[in-house]
């Protein structure tokens, strides 16, 4: 192994060094919270450049590392998505942290390490490399969820997330160890070869079940979802945005990679379980969201439902299904971050801006933002001119073509239910009078809202490039699965 | 082994060979070593008091026997006969178990230490020997921390906590300082480490920094002056063993001196060539000793004993000369100086080894 062999890990290397530098910087430059976001953005820019450099084919994994990590288009797609998402969250956090009550440097450093973990997850093709990446992400998330350490709710959120997350990691690891015992390897291709000859091996199925349970926890699918509402509500809002987008997208990246690359020939054994989980997630998530008056809680339940939709793509085990997962993750990330930006916009104290009432009369005071919010909600609901429609279209089509018409019916019905509670916000904004008269958005939040608005609309109206990109990204994995 | 002692070996004729090799012989060796160590430990206490007396221009114990030489027999008898007091609020079970805990690892470690040329003087030669020694010595802290807690006494508790913090802190540089030696010898087996030194030079020369850190850490590890804060008598009465009396107290005492002996043995083996007196394979090597028969083997043991004795005296010397550290200074020394220094030592050693290998081979 030489230095050149490590070139394709350049983004991760940049991020881990940058994360350490962000920790050390205050020692030299003093704790000016306002500057932290700028340095963090610079780091993300460098990481993006590195990711693009790798995407351009600069680094080819060496033999030694190639068994653990790859730099295929699938990984590159997710890496770039992660960088964009984290950059947006960094901008959202800037205003939040400028109060100076909590140090911004460690916050951004943890964010960088989390991003690093997500990138390792996206490019890992070996269960060990996937696992260490996942743990890096999870640990950083636990800390970030409890970052407002003087707020009881934040501490409670971190505690719940940590205890349940650690348990789920244990389950995941136990599943991996059983798979290793049955297949004799942790490499996804080797697993796939071994699995092809051992359908019906009970130890293997238990292993896959436990692995699936651990992954379902990470994507917050029913019945492993109970942590979601409390953690999402208690965590600082930018961190909630991080958990509900970045963390979830990363979990879906490995979910898709493990099941498509490693376990596709075992499909008859696990499809009914995943189908049940997907159906339950959609039903429970949407129905529970209807009764919520707290916007953060409502969005938490809605994110459970979105996990259910995305699972359809994993379940379908087809080209269009995987494509659907990628597209859905992309459009979901933009719409979701836009929504969270709106929640932060309305914040008056640390946690406010999270009741449905807080949106009352937004139309009058800030028509542009009210319109943006409507677009984000339509996208989350999957209504045509927005990008969410394309994502749902692909997922539902994949489910139907794979013979899960009943799931598609549930999904459509539940999307209708979701429109009901999304429209409560719209009603509040347009038809009610309220106190939301004094909205003074910071430049960063305004920027994020506009970026997300443009992205959501553009991807909805002109989706060809996105679809083609997704098709290109999934090619190596689908080729492998169909082999 | 059975070849060197055919007569004794024939006694075990009816026992299967692996049993003899793996169970019977080590047991016999260990029992002998145990008896000798007990003697040495008891004797060290006398030596310590006499040497301290000499350093401080006073006499020390000189009444029991000629020059007080029988003091080391009198002390244990006194301790055995003393009343065994259990404080009223003590946690009975923990209070009872605590003195035994440090004794077990302290003596188990002697199974792994070769006192002279193998195979006669090495009880076992495990290929992860050094790691096992570190592991065992690291568990010695439990007796102290538990004894401090169980005594239901503030001074004891503080002493126990101080000691736990100190031992955990200094375990890190203790372990790290050895890494350089391991890199040079490429083995965790103590016999192999000694063998490498007789073929080249004593590790103390290439690993001077490592040796220095080891010396400091091994003194702090056993709570000896100038790092004897857990039992700083002016602040904490007697630290964790304030409430202990009689034989229970003696156990703590015994464990401390046994640990000192272990550490002295370790530094001799790791940095000062063990039982050999050889440079670049010339001089008294293990091989020469083995060919010289019993005489050579005993010579090896004596050389080892002399080197160990020097470091035991060094401990006492430290106690006679250095003033005690303050607790924050102790922690600062450990975390801010010793650990970074040890890490730098490892990196530099690694780079030098890499350069020498690539340039030389």
């Amino acid at each position: 192994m030489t230095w050149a062999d490590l070139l394709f890990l350049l983004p991760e290397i940049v991020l881990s060094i940058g994360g350490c530098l962000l920790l050390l910087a205050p020692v030299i430059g003093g704790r000016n919270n306002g500057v932290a976001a700028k340095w963090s953005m610079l780091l993300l820019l460098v990481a993006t450049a590195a990711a693009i450099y790798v995407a351009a084919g600069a680094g080819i994994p060496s033999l030694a590392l190639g068994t653990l990590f790859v730099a295929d288009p699938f990984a590159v797609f997710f890496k770039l998505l992660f960088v964009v998402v984290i950059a947006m969250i960094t901008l959202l956090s800037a205003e939040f942290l400028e109060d100076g009550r909590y140090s911004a440097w460690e916050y951004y450093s943890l964010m960088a390490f989390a991003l690093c973990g997500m990138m390792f997850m996206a490019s890992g093709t070996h269960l060990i490399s996937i696992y260490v990446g996942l743990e890096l992400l999870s640990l950083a998330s636990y800390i970030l969820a409890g970052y407002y350490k003087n707020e009881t709710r934040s501490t409670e959120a971190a505690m719940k997330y940590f205890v349940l997350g650690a348990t789920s990691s244990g389950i995941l690891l136990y599943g991996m160890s059983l798979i290793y015992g049955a297949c004799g390897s942790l490499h996804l291709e080797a697993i796939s070869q071994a699995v092809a000859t051992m359908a019906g091996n009970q130890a293997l199925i238990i292993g896959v079940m436990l692995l699936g349970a651990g992954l379902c926890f990470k994507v917050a699918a029913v019945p492993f979802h109970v942590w979601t509402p409390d953690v999402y509500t208690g965590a600082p809002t930018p961190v909630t945005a991080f958990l509900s987008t970045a963390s979830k997208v990363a979990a879906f990246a490995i979910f898709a990679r493990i099941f498509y690359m490693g376990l596709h020939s075992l499909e008859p054994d696990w499809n009914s379980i995943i189908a049940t989980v997907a159906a339950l997630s959609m039903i429970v998530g949407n129905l529970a969201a209807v009764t919520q008056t707290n916007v953060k809680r409502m969005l938490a339940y809605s994110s459970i439902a979105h996990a259910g939709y995305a699972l359809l793509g994993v379940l379908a085990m087809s080209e269009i299904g995987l494509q659907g997962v990628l597209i859905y993750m992309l459009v979901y990330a933009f719409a979701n971050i836009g929504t969270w930006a709106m929640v932060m916009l309305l914040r008056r104290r640390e946690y406010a801006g999270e009741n449905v009432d807080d949106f009352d009369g937004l139309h009058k005071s800030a028509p542009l933002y009210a319109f943006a919010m409507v677009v984000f909600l339509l996208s989350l609901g999957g209504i045509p001119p927005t990008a969410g429609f394309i994502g749902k279209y692909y997922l539902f089509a994949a489910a139907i073509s794979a013979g899960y018409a009943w799931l598609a019916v549930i999904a459509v019905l539940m999307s209708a239910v979701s429109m009901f509670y999304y429209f409560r916000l719209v009603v509040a904004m347009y038809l009610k009078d309220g106190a939301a008269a004094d909205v003074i958005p910071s430049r960063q939040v305004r920027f994020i809202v506009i970026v997300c608005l443009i992205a959501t609309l553009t991807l909805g109206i002109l989706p060809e490039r996105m679809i083609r990109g997704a098709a290109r990204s999934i090619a190596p994995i689908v080729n492998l699965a169909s082999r | 082994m059975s070849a060197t002692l055919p007569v004794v070996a024939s006694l075990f004729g009816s026992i299967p060979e692996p049993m003899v090799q793996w169970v019977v012989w080590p047991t016999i060796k260990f029992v002998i070593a145990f008896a000798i160590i007990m003697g040495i430990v008891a004797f060290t206490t006398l030596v310590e008091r006499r040497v301290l007396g000499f350093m401080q221009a006073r006499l020390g114990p000189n009444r029991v026997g000629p020059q007080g030489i029988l003091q080391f027999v009198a002390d244990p008898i006194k301790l055995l006969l003393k009343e065994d007091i259990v404080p009223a609020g003590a946690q009975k079970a923990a209070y009872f178990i605590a003195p035994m805990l440090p004794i077990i690892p302290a003596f188990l470690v002697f199974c792994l230490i070769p006192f002279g040329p193998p195979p006669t003087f090495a009880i076992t030669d495990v290929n992860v020997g050094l790691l096992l020694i570190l592991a065992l010595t690291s568990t010695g802290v439990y007796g102290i921390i538990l004894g401090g807690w169980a005594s239901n006494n503030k001074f004891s508790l503080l002493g126990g906590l101080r000691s736990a913090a100190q031992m955990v802190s200094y375990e890190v540089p203790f372990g790290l300082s050895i890494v350089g030696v391991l890199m040079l010898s490429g083995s965790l087996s103590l016999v192999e480490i000694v063998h490498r030194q007789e073929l080249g030079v004593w590790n103390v020369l290439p690993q001077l920094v490592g040796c220095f850190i080891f010396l400091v850490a091994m003194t702090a590890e056993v709570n000896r002056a100038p790092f004897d804060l857990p039992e700083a008598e002016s602040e904490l009465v007697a630290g964790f063993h304030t409430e202990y009396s009689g034989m229970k107290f003696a156990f703590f005492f015994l464990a401390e001196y046994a640990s000192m002996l272990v550490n002295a043995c370790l530094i001799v083996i790791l940095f000062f060539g063990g039982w050999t007196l050889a440079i670049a394979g010339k001089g008294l090597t293990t091989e020469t000793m083995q060919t010289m028969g019993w005489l050579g083997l005993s010579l090896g043991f004596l050389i080892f004993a002399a080197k160990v004795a020097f470091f035991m005296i060094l401990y006492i010397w430290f106690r006679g000369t250095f003033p005690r550290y303050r607790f924050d200074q102790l922690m600062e020394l450990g975390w801010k100086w010793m650990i970074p220094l040890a890490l730098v030592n490892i990196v530099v050693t690694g780079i030098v080894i890499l350069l020498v290998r690539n340039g030389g081979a």
Partner: protein
Amino acid sequence: MTDPLMLTGVSLALFVIVGAIAVASSILVVSMRNPVHSALFLLLTFLCVAILFVSMGAEFVGAVQVLVYAGGIMVLFLFVVMLINVKALPKEKVFTATSMMGVLMGVLLFIILAIILASGTWAPAVNAPENLRTAVVVKTTPVVDAGGATIQTETVTRDVVGNAEAVGMALYRDYLVPFEVASLFLLVAMVGAIVIGKRELDASEEEAIPEFIAKKVSDEDRLKEVTGA
């Protein structure tokens, strides 16, 4: 070194005894009402697990288990428990209906898993002697020829001595990058502990710190002050 535990039946007996102690003490860890006792039983569990590792020929892992868990982590556990000074938890009813349901579910799950796993088919063991005892090492030798100095590499198969080397090969060669990620993970854990645990002192508390600890006064000055020189 040949396996010392080839004595007939000894390894089995050892496994049964030590395993039973490990299970019993791990149950005691959760059922003891005094946290110090719990911690001590956890220590016993760790030691038993270390013995099991050694009896399976993994001396390195066994030694590291004792060194790290017994020697480091558990000491810190005890340290914290004693600093907080929880004497004993209040008596409460442990066997409530809910917890009995939990126990029942656990037992059922154990039985199901045991039945299924016992009948499962497994991949051939990777720790078979022929797999473990050799390692492929890339040997580099500098060669000076007409074209100048070049580095010649060849792969050599040689015996692995003991499992410390085998673990080293796995960690630092095969799984180097995951190993480094694990070190990042530890760094994040450390940062998190400090970020969450650190308490910002207010002005009055900062005043209360002794000057020599806050390093406002150097040791020499303090010595002068104390001795009156």
